[in-house]
């Protein structure tokens, strides 16, 4: 049943994607963009995507836990925050993987890990401040841009990998990113609930 589920959904998704270029030949770009957006939004609400994300997340968390369990558990606070960051990064990466590389932010998230690793290697060799140039730019550009453009820049900073992206593309990416984030929050909430449901109940009954 699972096998039957996935191929059918994937085929429909791919066929609809293939159909779009043919239709856009005659239709205008706006209609095409709208369709793309609707497709992208709907896909974050499908059951299949959610299930994929959930199970991937679980596996990733298991890995993280495994890794964290090997480390020392002396400083709980530090461990928690470090683990929290790791879990958040893992969850983001899983989310980006669920996007299947179609969106810019997902590719940026997945690429950032590779970049971080490379940076670590580079830093081991030579100590250079990579963030310096970026900070310098933001500091020197104190000119007040119009409000809308300022906010678009802020939005670009929020969405990963979308700093120098054109406005319509940025809005597209933001749409998809918001839908994906919503799904991520729901999945993590459910998972946290599940896990916390187990924990306190047993301890309370124990006491």
């Amino acid at each position: 049943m699972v096998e039957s589920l996935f191929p059918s959904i994937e085929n429909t998704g791919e066929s609809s994607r293939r159909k779009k270029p043919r239709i856009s030949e005659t239709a205008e770009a706006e209609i095409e963009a709208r369709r793309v957006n609707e497709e992208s939004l709907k896909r974050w609400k499908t059951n299949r995507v959610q299930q994929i994300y959930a199970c991937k997340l679980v596996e990733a968390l298991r890995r993280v836990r495994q890794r964290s369990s090997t480390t020392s558990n002396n400083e709980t606070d530090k461990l928690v925050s470090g683990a929290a960051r790791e879990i958040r990064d893992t969850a983001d990466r899983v989310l980006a993987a669920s996007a299947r590389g179609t969106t810019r932010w997902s590719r940026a998230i997945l690429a950032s890990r590779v970049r971080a690793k490379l940076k670590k290697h580079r830093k081991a060799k030579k100590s250079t401040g990579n963030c310096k140039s970026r900070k310098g730019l933001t500091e020197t550009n104190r000119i007040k841009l119009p409000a809308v453009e300022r906010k678009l820049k802020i939005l670009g900073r929020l969405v990963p990998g979308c700093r120098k992206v054109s406005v319509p593309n940025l809005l597209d990416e933001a749409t998809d990113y918001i839908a994906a984030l919503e799904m991520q929050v729901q999945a993590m909430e459910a998972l946290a609930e599940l896990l916390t449901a187990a924990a306190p109940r047993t301890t309370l009954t124990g006491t």
Partner: protein
Amino acid sequence: MENELFMNAGVSHPPVMTAPSSSSAMLKWVSMETQPVDPSLSRNLFWEKSTEQSIFDSALSSLVSSPTPSNSNFSVGGVGGENVIMRELIGKLGNIGDIYGITASNGNSCYATPMSSPPPGSMMETKTTTPMAELSGDPGFAERAARFSCFGSRSFNSRTNSPFPINNEPPITTNEKMPRVSSSPVFKPLASHVPAGESSGEFSRKRRTKSKQNSPSAVSSSKEIEEKEDSDPKRCKKSEENGDKTKSIDPYKDYIHVRARRGQATDSHSLAERVRREKISERMKLLQDLVPGCNKVTGKALMLDEIINYVQSLQRQVEFLSMKLSSVNTRLDFNMDALLSKDIFPSSNNLMHHQQVLRLDSSAETLLGDHHNKNLQLNPDITSNNIINPLETSDTSRSFIHLPTLAHFSDSISQYSTFSEDDLHSIIHMGFAQNRLQELNQGSSNQVPSHMKAEL
């Protein structure tokens, strides 16, 4: 009507390309074209009759007055006849250009090169426009002629019937251009009729030429026709930009067809601007639907504020949940994880709940006190619910009710996980799968390895 004009405007002298004799140039050009076409031969005779002056007079008179349609001399059938008509009109324009005393000598050199540059492709437009350069040096004339040359055969067919009282034929590309072009009184009747057509609905030139031509040479020819237009730089650029966008889709039709709306500016700049604005507003509308509370807000700035706030709040939620998960994670063992993973989504299977509950009991010793305190602080309501009614399936299902979108689980989630591992592999090179495989091998859940084998 046009037939008469050209017939009366016949030229006696041989086809010599002298600068002032645009009519002779016309004749030569026409003769070039008309050799393969039979109906035009009859016109040549007429052409040789009158002199230049008569050309001028007849042209003026025909243009100003409302001419009678007379297609009797023409066998207007097919492309040949239409081309002849076009040529006639262009010749007429050439005559009118002479009226204003603009020497052709200046123009010849200027316009010879750009207009002769296009490949003598199969397109009528290019053929008609290349000789145009030689006809007159009037840059305005060249512009106008180029525009007229862009008239599709359709429009000319209709125009031959009622040429100058141009009825509301939508496919008149130069409508938008005409008001700008006509500084000449001769063109006023044209212009006055044109707005009628204009108001009914305007097409961009691209659409016109596009609808006719379906070949790459068409693209190049229509493009360079546009290049001739001094007033059309932006559209050209935009079309190229749009072409770049849609190039991957269709290499031939690399234009985004834009239709200017009624009562709005038809400037290419404003058209492009409008397209851009519409795109952005389209996407903002989508975002508005997605972000809660954006319906009341109007205006881009405020909406962007809301969107930014929403994204920040979602990211903060993710961080908070990850912190929560990390605190829960550290205290659980493999058993719990594997079993709980199945129940992440509410399943309709009651047995699953029972199993979950039983397994929770079995792994109770692994949970520690301080961890429990933290969880209580975080979400007292949910935990209390679970504490009070641990064995009732209704509660476990109730806790998931507020997540309706998370669908019930059909089979064991491990199947999905193995499938997703393949997805991961295809996308990124991470150590996920390797670690997972190791875990699965060591994992205590019995179903996982069997499913893994089945999937892989």
